[in-house]
Structure formats: structure tokens, C-alpha cells
């Protein structure tokens, strides 16, 4: 008897619980404005996108996103999302576009569409300000360059300069930075933003500077950083693509660029 009564009670409770859960579900489903573009970003990748002490989003990605939305005459809001769930959340419609320094790769293209790149950090050489090194086959002959192992930059150097330069590989970029500061290397070669933030803007790197061209060859460095969208959202993709061209052509892009970098982060046209 005891158990039977509770079996009955339980069914009752279950019914109520189900009703509540289904109710919440639809309540949540209803609250959704249509013509606002929601932009997903990570908030933990300075200087591109990060949350400051007060929890506000800052950075190059954020300012570019705002400029793109203005150029395309769209209303945009930001949603922060940890990197692990970035693409699943896009597919589950938690937001409509990812502007979070996401590299355009073949693997990702199978699940999402990308706009054209909105930046592509080049790889560059760094040398001591007082040294005179010309970036040419003659100028580089016999010099020693430091790279971080297993990076696209290291592959590029190994494939193109291994017969004229001595290449030293390091486990981390910091080790390579320390070795050029102690005079064991003539040059560093790595992603320009990594070099600028991790070395040139620090005390040990203050006597060093970029030299030579920006390398962005697609064979080694990929297609750059784009905006990821759900597959088939061609109107939104077109709007973003046109906006990228617009802010490149007027001065908006370079104004934002110059706040963060002392070179054009867009890379080759």
C-alpha cells in the first residue's frame, strides 16, 4: 500500500515536473529578436578580443566587428563563449557569426562558411636596431635565425632558407626571444603579433625591431582570419564581405589597425 500510493504521487510529481520543464523551454524559445546580428567572441585572446577588468569586451576583433556592422547597417550584439564551444554554439544558433580571430581552415569549412579574411597576421623577421641585416639571399647568408618548433613560421623558414641560414629551433617562442637578447641569434622569425606583444613591447625586446617584408604565402600561412557563419547564410556572408571591402577602402580599418599594430595586419590585398 505504502509503495503504491507513492507510485501514484510520483507520477503526479513527474507530470508537474515535465510541464514545468517544457514550459521553461518555450519561454526561453520565445525570447528572441530577429533583426539583430549576434556575434560570438571568446574574450580571452588579447589583443584581439578580451574582457577588461570591468567585464567589457575590448580588442581589435571587437572594434572591427563594430565597424563592419556599422558599414553594413546592421545592429549587432556580442555574446562571449569559451573557445571549446565556439562552433557548436554557432550551429545551435546561440549567435549568428563568429568574430574571434578564427583561422580559415579546410577542416572548419566542412561545418561552417567563412567570409573573406578580415586580417592575416604576417610572419616577419626581427633584428637588433643597431645591426644592419638585409633581408635578401646575400644579406642572410651565414646568419642564425631562431624559430619556434612545429609552427607555420618554422615550416616556412625550413622550406625556404635552410640552405643559406643556420636555423635554431626552440620549444617556445620565449626561449628564442631570450636567446636573441643574449646575442646567440641574429634574427627571429615568427608571427608578427606574437613577436610584437611577446617580445618587442617587453623590456628585453625594446632594442629590437621588425625588418624585411611581411610573409603571408598561402601555402604556409593559410588563408587568414575570417568570420564564421552557419552554412547557407549567404545574405549575411555577402553583407560582411562588402563591409570588409568598405572599411578597407575608407579609413576605418586603418584607424583601428593603428591603435593595435604598427604594421598593416590585413596582409596582402
Amino acid at each position, binding site marked *: 500500500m*505504502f509503495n503504491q500510493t507513492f507510485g501514484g504521487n510520483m507520477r503526479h510529481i513527474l507530470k508537474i515536473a515535465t510541464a514545468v520543464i517544457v514550459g521553461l523551454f518555450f519561454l526561453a524559445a520565445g525570447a528572441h529578436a530577429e533583426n539583430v546580428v549576434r556575434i560570438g567572441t571568446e574574450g*580571452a585572446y588579447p589583443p584581439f578580443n578580451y574582457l577588461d577588468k570591468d567585464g567589457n569586451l575590448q580588442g581589435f576583433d571587437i572594434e572591427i566587428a563594430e565597424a563592419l556592422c556599422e558599414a553594413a547597417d546592421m545592429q549587432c550584439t556580442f555574446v562571449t563563449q569559451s573557445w571549446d564551444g565556439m562552433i557548436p554554439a554557432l550551429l545551435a544558433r546561440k549567435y549568428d557569426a563568429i568574430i574571434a580571430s578564427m583561422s580559415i581552415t579546410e577542416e572548419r569549412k566542412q561545418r561552417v562558411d567563412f567570409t573573406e579574411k578580415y586580417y592575416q597576421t604576417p610572419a616577419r623577421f626581427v633584428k637588433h636596431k643597431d645591426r644592419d641585416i638585409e633581408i635578401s639571399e646575400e644579406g642572410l647568408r651565414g646568419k642564425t635565425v631562431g624559430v619556434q618548433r612545429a609552427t607555420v613560421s618554422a615550416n616556412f623558414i625550413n622550406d625556404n632558407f635552410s640552405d643559406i641560414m643556420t636555423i635554431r629551433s626552440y620549444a617556445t617562442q620565449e626561449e628564442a626571444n631570450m636567446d636573441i637578447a643574449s646575442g646567440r641569434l641574429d634574427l627571429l622569425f615568427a608571427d608578427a603579433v606574437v613577436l610584437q606583444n611577446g617580445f618587442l613591447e617587453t623590456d628585453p625586446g625594446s632594442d629590437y625591431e621588425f625588418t624585411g617584408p611581411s610573409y603571408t604565402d598561402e601555402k604556409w600561412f593559410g588563408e587568414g582570419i575570417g568570420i564564421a557563419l552557419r552554412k547557407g547564410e549567404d545574405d549575411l556572408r555577402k553583407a560582411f564581405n562588402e563591409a570588409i571591402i568598405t572599411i578597407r577602402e575608407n579609413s576605418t580599418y586603418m584607424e583601428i589597425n593603428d591603435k593595435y599594430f604598427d604594421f598593416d595586419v590585413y596582409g596582402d590585398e
Partner: protein
Amino acid sequence: MPLIDLQGYGPLLLQGAKLTIYVGTCSMVLAIVLGLIGVLGQLSKSPVVRFLVNTYTTVVRGIPELVLILLVYYGVPTLIQDVSAALGSPVYVALDPFISGTATIGFIYGAFSTEVFRGAYLAVPKGQLEAARACGMSSALTFRRITLPQMMRYALPGLGNVWMVLIKATALISVIQLPELMRNADIAARNTRLPFTFFFAASLIYLAITIVSNIVQQWAEKRANRGVRGA
């Protein structure tokens, strides 16, 4: 700053801690409710109900929390969208991160507390229930006056344990847009490039939460045992 310099990110960590405690508490309440429903289901005479509850506790205890969280938050809406789009009338589901996080964690730890309650129920001497019946109590009254208070004595240590595991499992919901303690510590760590400072600070906060929980648990156990000599 004292011992650790948080570079101004202290308030962000505290906000995260608040959300962690909030999510933890709501999930725990849900877990206890589900646990009580579950134990009643396990004791049910209906084999169908028993089978359902056993399936629930086995499956949920057997799947990693992170997998379930991702399934509920991303998988279910995507599935509904794809199925409804295939049927010709797309439905878009916007699950609130707080609700789905709390519901998922509560659902998972409901399975654990079901097992805790089952052990506790079995520890209550059968004679007690028979005596209550003999006094003419209805089964609802028996449960409220006789079974539940005695069950609680046995269940509290186990529930305390469930709570400790649960509060740390809330770190997993950082994958679903909830800025709880772990997510905010990660943001601060990466923006200041001081990972050890912030993960150490976060671990101290988790430790503080569990120490306070321990004190509350000891008080609750004392209270539940107040009718028992020498306990």
C-alpha cells in the same frame, strides 16, 4: 594588495564565484528533489517505473558530465532545428544557459542522490514503518514523520559528498556561456598572462566554499542526529 596581486580582476573572480554558488545551490536543490523522486520510483511496485529509474541512474552516472552538458545545450537545439527544418517548418530553440546548465547538473547529480537516498531508506528499520502503520498513519504521513527524518540521518553524509563533487562540476558549465568562477579565472589568466596567480586564486575560492559547506554539513548532521544517543 595582500599575498596575491589580482591586477584588478578580483571583482570578476568574485562575480564568477557568486554564479558558481548560485548554480551549485539551484542544481543541488534539483538533485535532491530528483533523488527523492528517484528513490520512490526505485521502491515502486511497478516494474516499468523501477526500470525507468534504474536506467536513469545507470546511464546518467555512466556518462561524463561534460558530454551531457554539451548534448543538452548544443545537441538538443541543433537536433530540433535539423529535424524541424527537414519537416519543412524550422523551429529555433534558445535555451537559456543558466537554466540548461542548472538543469543538466541537477539531472546528473539527481542520479547520484537517488542512490544515496536508496541506501538511507534501506537503513531505516522496517519495524518503524510497521509500527507507524499499526498506529494508523497514512503512507504519506509515515513518510513525512517516520521515514524521511530517519533517512536524513543516513543520507546527509552522502549528500554532503554529492554537493562537494557537484560544486566542482559547475566548472564544466563554462563551456556554455556562463561566466562562472573557472571561466572568469581563465579570462583573467589569459588577459594578464598570469595563469598561476588566477588559477591559484580560483582554487582558494573553491576550497573556501567547501570548507564552509563542511561546517554547514556538520551542523546539519548534528541536528539530524539530535534524537540519537551518542551520535
